[in-house]
């Protein structure tokens, strides 16, 4: 067995349609350059993308699943942030 495991990289791909980079999966590689090469082979075999980002998984800070409730509560209670909260008279047409 190898002495040390290659770090894990999270892979983000931007597709051709002008959308933002999107997380597609992860892979192991010794460095960023190899991670991009490997990401090309693992995640873009069918023209899925025109740009690749890789980020070391250990560099990602994530919100904690157990604090999901309190963390997102402020948005939950603000239904007036959605357009559907407001009733517009039908005769006015589309707004």
């Amino acid at each position, binding site marked *: *067995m*190898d002495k*040390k*495991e*290659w770090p*894990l990289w999270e892979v983000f791909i931007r597709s051709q349609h002008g959308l933002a980079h999107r997380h597609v*999966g*992860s*892979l*192991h*590689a*010794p*460095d960023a350059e*190899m991670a991009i090469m490997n990401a090309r*082979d*693992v995640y873009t*075999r*069918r023209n899925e993308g025109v740009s690749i980002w890789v980020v070391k998984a250990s560099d990602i800070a*994530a919100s*904690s*699943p*157990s604090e999901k409730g309190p963390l997102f509560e402020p948005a939950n209670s603000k239904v007036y942030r959605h357009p559907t909260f407001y009733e517009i008279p039908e005769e006015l047409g589309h707004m």
Partner: protein
Amino acid sequence: MYAQMVKTGLERIQSKEEMSPEERSFQERIDADIKIEPKEWMPEAYRKTLIRQISQHAHSEIIGMQPEGNWITRAPTLERKAILLAKVQDEAGHGLYLYCAAETLGVSRDELMEQLNSGKAKYSSIFNYPTLTWADIGAIGWLVDGAAIMNQVPLQRCSYGPYSRAMIRICKEESFHQRQGYDIMMKLARGTPEQQRMAQDALNRWWWPSLMMFGPSDADSVHSAQSMMWKIKINSNDELRQKFVDQTVPQAEYIGLTVPDPDLKWNAERGHYDFGEINWDEFYQVISGNGPCNRQRLRTRVNAYEEGRWVREAADAYAAKKAARAQAKAA
């Protein structure tokens, strides 16, 4: 299937009353079709069963490259060779998606590799059969990938987020595999008498092992019942096998091949094909290491790993050198 007879480590299913509050709310989320994500609380048995199932599936993809890889250098045309290369490369990709999904459950890639290379881990029985002629490549795509799809399509809806996402990617790519296999069989079945014989011979050899892929009947299995409750198994083995037979028999008939089962006949009452007894003794022999190619598959796998060692070490050394240079420059 690609993961056959996955054990849960449990002897019976807990009732809702027996569950701890955590277990109960976990089960309620699953019942409500809410995905479980890494780092969220989950019962230890769920985590361990999933690691077993996903890694077995991954190992099958990796070992599955071997029977087909056998024909890359001997494909009949350059086009067929390019297609087969792409397919085998997909299998490697599928293995990688699945290893990553397994790693989110807290097992390391090195541990998984160790389990495979030491022979401790299981992989699907189907990959221990030899590919004797070019027609076998057609039969594998058509039957083996066809059987795999039966199982993988419902797994796209499984309860564990990373596994479900890996299955979605895999299913997108897998239908190319099945169609290219059927395309090979179709060409041969409409070819010279010798080519037709080759196609029939491949079907004769791959039919029963393909039915075995679904595993023995699990109608009374506690493990399957638990896995279904957790939604990491969606259909019973018999259900999927029946679906596969019903789908495949007309495809064989269409190209004039005969399914090698004298008991096979349409049952209008059931609306399904009846089919003959499967030789489960053979299945148990193959999964316990005594199939036609078990030793060869493992040896090839270990050799590939050992022969790639210098590449991994060189990549490591290069990464270390570059990092050191970058550090010196920054200082």
